[in-house]
C-alpha cells in the first residue's frame, strides 16, 4: 500500500522532495557511477589477461561489494528520477491529449501504473543484484 501511495504521490508530480534535492541526487549519483566504472575498468585493464582467481578475489573484496551496492543504488535513484520525469512530461492528460482524447482520459491511471511498474522492477533488480554480490 505504501508503494501505491508513494507512486501515486510521485506520479502526480510532487516527488515529496525539493527540486534542489533531486538535482543533487542526480548529479551525485552520476558522479559515483562514473567513479565506480573507472574503478572496475582500471582493475580489468591492469589485470589483463585476467585469471579466474584474480577476478574472484576482486569480487569477494569488501570494497567491491560496498562500491557495487552503492553504485547500483545510485543507478536506481538516477533512473527513478529520469523515468519519473518522463512520466510527468509525457503521460499526462495534456500531452496524451495532443494524440487522442480517449488516451488523455486514462493518462493519470497510465502514469500511476507506469510509476508502480518501474519502481517494482527497479527494486526487484536491485535486490537480485544484492543477492549476487553478497551471497
Amino acid at each position, binding site marked *: 500500500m505504501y508503494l501505491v501511495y508513494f507512486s501515486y504521490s510521485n506520479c502526480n508530480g*510532487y516527488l515529496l522532495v525539493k*527540486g*534542489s534535492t533531486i538535482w543533487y541526487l542526480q548529479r551525485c549519483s552520476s558522479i559515483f557511477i562514473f567513479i565506480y566504472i573507472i574503478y572496475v575498468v582500471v582493475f580489468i585493464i591492469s589485470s589483463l589477461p585476467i585469471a579466474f582467481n584474480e577476478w574472484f578475489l576482486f569480487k569477494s573484496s569488501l570494497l567491491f561489494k560496498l562500491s557495487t551496492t552503492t553504485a547500483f543504488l545510485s543507478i536506481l535513484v538516477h533512473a527513478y528520477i529520469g523515468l519519473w520525469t518522463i512520466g*510527468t*512530461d509525457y503521460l499526462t492528460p*495534456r*500531452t496524451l491529449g495532443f494524440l487522442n482524447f480517449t488516451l488523455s482520459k486514462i493518462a493519470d491511471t497510465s502514469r500511476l501504473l507506469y510509476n508502480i511498474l518501474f519502481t517494482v522492477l527497479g527494486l526487484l533488480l536491485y535486490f537480485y543484484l544484492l543477492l549476487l554480490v553478497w551471497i
Partner: protein
Amino acid sequence: MLNINIYRYNPEQDKFPYMMNYEIEKPEKDIMVLDLLHLLKENDPSLSFRRSCREGVCGSDGMSINGKNGLACITALSDALKGDRLDIRPLPGLPVIRDLVVDMTQFYNQYEKIKPFLQNDTTPPEQERLQSPADRDKLDGLYECILCACCSTSCPSFWWNPDKFVGPAALLQAYRFLADTRDLEKDSRLDDLADPFSVYRCHGIMNCVAACPKGLNPNKAIGEIKTMLLKGKSSKNIIASDGVTA
C-alpha cells in the same frame, strides 16, 4: 511568386484547423512578415492575428515563422523565407482562439505567480529607493523582456507542464527581482520556486535563447536561480555592493 501557408482555425465554422495556401507576388522591396500578413488580409479580411506597435516593443505579434518563434513586425521576409516558401503558425503549445491568435492565460498565470513587482516593506524614502550603478547594472538583460511569449512557447517543458513549470519568460522576470538589491523578499521568492517543477523542469536546451526577439538570455537567468536555490536561503538583509544595507 511566394508560396505562403497560414494556419487557419475558426472554432465557429471549422471542426479542425487547417493550413491555407496563398500565392502572392514577391514584393520588390524587402518587407516584414507583419506587412505581408497585412497584404494578405486586404484580400482575405477573415485572416486574424494580433499586432499593435509594429516595431518590436509591444510583443503582440509573436508567432511561429517557418518553424521559429519570432515577432512578425521585426522579422524581415528575406530572413524568414525558405526558398519561396513561408509557413506561419500560432505560437505552439497555447490554445488557439482563432487563426494566429492564441489564448495567453496560462502564460500570464505563470507571470503572476512570480510576483512581478518590487517587495520592500521598509519606509520609502522621500523620492526613490537608490541603487549603486553596479547594482543597477545587474538588471541589464533582465528588465527588457516584453512578454511576447516567444521563449516560453518554444520550450518543450512549458508545452508539457504549463501549469507547473514557470517557463523562461516568467523565470527571467523572477530573477530580475531576485537580482534587485531593493527587493527584500528573496527568501519567499525562492521558497515559491523550490519545488521540482517551477525551475527544475528547465533542462537547459536553450530554445528560449534562440527564440528571444530581444536577444535576451533566459537560460542564464534560470541558471542563476538554480544556483541561488542550491546555495540555500539568502540573508534577510541583503548587503548591496556599495556596502549599504538595503
